[in-house]
């Protein structure tokens, strides 16, 4: 039996991502939760299924000039420009605190070349507290004319394999939604060795200020997140669930336990809460609480019963 009946009283919320056991299916999305410490006064970090930290690159990155964010209808655009302290300072300054949390820490990584992804992964391998790696492939491959890794199945598979070869922890590949065929991308990284896929990253978008006649973001384009993108995210999770066998982590506009459970019905084993953390710093904990209540109220043996439990036969009563 994969999930041994434990001697605890609460509902069974445990899920597995590859070899990674999570106490519940709720993680925080990369780039929306800082390095977790920012939230320590505002919520109980130990309640989370996992923490995913801001994307880390081989060297520090200053990020884009301002303005970096702008609100849109039921969403927001960001062009942070992957600002981060780099893998060395991350390990030295951020990991000790994260390692002290009683929660698996998944490190989101990014690079401009396959070698860079490999290097970061090697550097993270064996660092205490690193429970998994999430590979952000929505970055331009600088060696291949700036085409995003996430838009090309071959490149995505190659990155996956490079990362997988360089570490022993589970590797989650985070898919870009800006593609014609998300199922194809998911299969490519599954074939490349991914233990799991997470989706979606942000949709590429743009906002314009009519008064200044200028883009709202200094970077011109940015990534769209929030409730606005939830329907696209749900559809992609549903499609990917039909394309791969590895566990899926659903992301996109999740604000409540209901949202999270919908992603699980569509086929997700776990979820990530992103933009909602900005609106309600307790959002991710409230999602855990709500799922827990749901599992109890619906008298489920475990939350895992929800995974892919969407009914497709026509409802007579509709």
């Amino acid at each position: 039996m994969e999930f041994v009946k434990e001697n605890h009283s609460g509902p069974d919320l445990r899920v597995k991502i590859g070899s990674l056991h999570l106490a519940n299916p709720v993680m925080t999305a990369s780039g929306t939760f800082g390095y977790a410490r920012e939230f320590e006064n505002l919520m109980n970090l130990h309640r989370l299924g996992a923490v995913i930290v801001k994307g880390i690159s081989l060297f520090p990155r200053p990020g884009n000039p301002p303005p970096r964010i702008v609100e849109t209808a039921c969403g927001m655009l960001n062009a942070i420009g992957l600002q981060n302290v780099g893998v060395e300072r991350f390990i030295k300054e951020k990991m000790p605190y994260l390692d002290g949390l009683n929660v698996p820490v998944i490190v989101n990584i990014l690079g401009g070349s396959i070698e860079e992804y490999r290097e970061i992964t090697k550097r993270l391998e064996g660092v205490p507290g690193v429970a998994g790696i999430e590979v952000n492939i929505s970055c331009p491959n600088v060696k291949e004319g700036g085409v995003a890794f996430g838009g090309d199945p071959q490149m995505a598979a190659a990155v996956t394999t490079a990362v997988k070869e360089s570490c022993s922890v589970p590797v989650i590949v985070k898919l870009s939604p800006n593609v014609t065929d998300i199922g194809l991308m998911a299969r490519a990284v599954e074939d490349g060795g991914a233990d799991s896929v997470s989706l979606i990253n942000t949709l590429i978008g743009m906002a314009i200020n009519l008064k200044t006649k200028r883009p709202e973001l200094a970077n011109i384009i940015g990534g769209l997140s929030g409730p606005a993108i939830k329907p696209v995210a749900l559809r992609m999770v549903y499609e990917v669930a039909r394309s791969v066998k590895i566990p899926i982590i659903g992301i996109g506009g999740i604000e409540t336990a209901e949202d999270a459970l919908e992603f699980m019905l569509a086929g997700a084993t776990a979820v990530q809460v992103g933009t909602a953390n900005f609106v309600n710093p307790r959002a991710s904990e409230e999602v855990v609480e709500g799922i827990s209540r749901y599992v109890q109220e619906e008298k489920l043996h475990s939350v895992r019963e929800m995974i892919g439990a969407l009914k497709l036969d026509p409802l007579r009563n509709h």
Partner: protein
Amino acid sequence: MPQYQEKTIVTRVEQLSCENVRITLKAPEIASCCKPGQFVMIRTSVGKDPLLRRPFSIHQADASGHIQIYFKIVGRGTEILAHVRVNEEISVFGPLGRGFTIDENLPTCIIGGGLGIAPLLFLAKEICRRKKKNCGPDLIILGGRTLDEVEPLVNDFREVGIRTLATTDDGSYGEKGFVTDVLKSVELAPNTQVYACGPEPMMAAINDFCLAEGLRCQVSVESVMACGMGACLGCNRPVGDGKYVHVCMDGPVFEAKELKWNL
């Protein structure tokens, strides 16, 4: 640094002028620990649109557990906020950011322009409290485009017990001119601590003046914000050399000389 996400209750709504509104909120946790210059993030809608919270300086806070914000209607969020009614509930999250540094041994000059006046009442009161009301050499200069932006608040500042001067661009109230005109016309002790909040050009001019005169100057600046607490990295501001500070964590109050100005 304690931070709270509080369900506050609106206890008073004052329409100070056509576009300027002051709201009093029962927010005991935030009121108990906030400092002048800090801000709060307020949810203006219970729905998903507008999605993000809006940042507002803490205009006043008192021992009875109330805080005040003072704002101008400039868009959808402030429009919604301006229409809240007494007894309604509003989600407020704070206190956030680094506030003003106060040295009660220094003479003080507080300069506010337009909505930049908002955080300064709390500051003036705290300075006066720390100085045990010995604010003789201190000065407040409040400026705005027209009477509407200045007049409704002048009495509150005068009541603090610090000499308060007013200017308007159009002369409709107080002296005609800019706050910097007044600043240049008064005598300030050489070790005066200047505090300024207002439009960027005003703060830049005050910074120039202070640099020339060798005065200390702290300013409170703005930026767009998604989270207000260091999680999104959206509120950056260049400080030169391709480096950035983040207004919500490193500010909103900065030493004026450390900043680059958006002119």
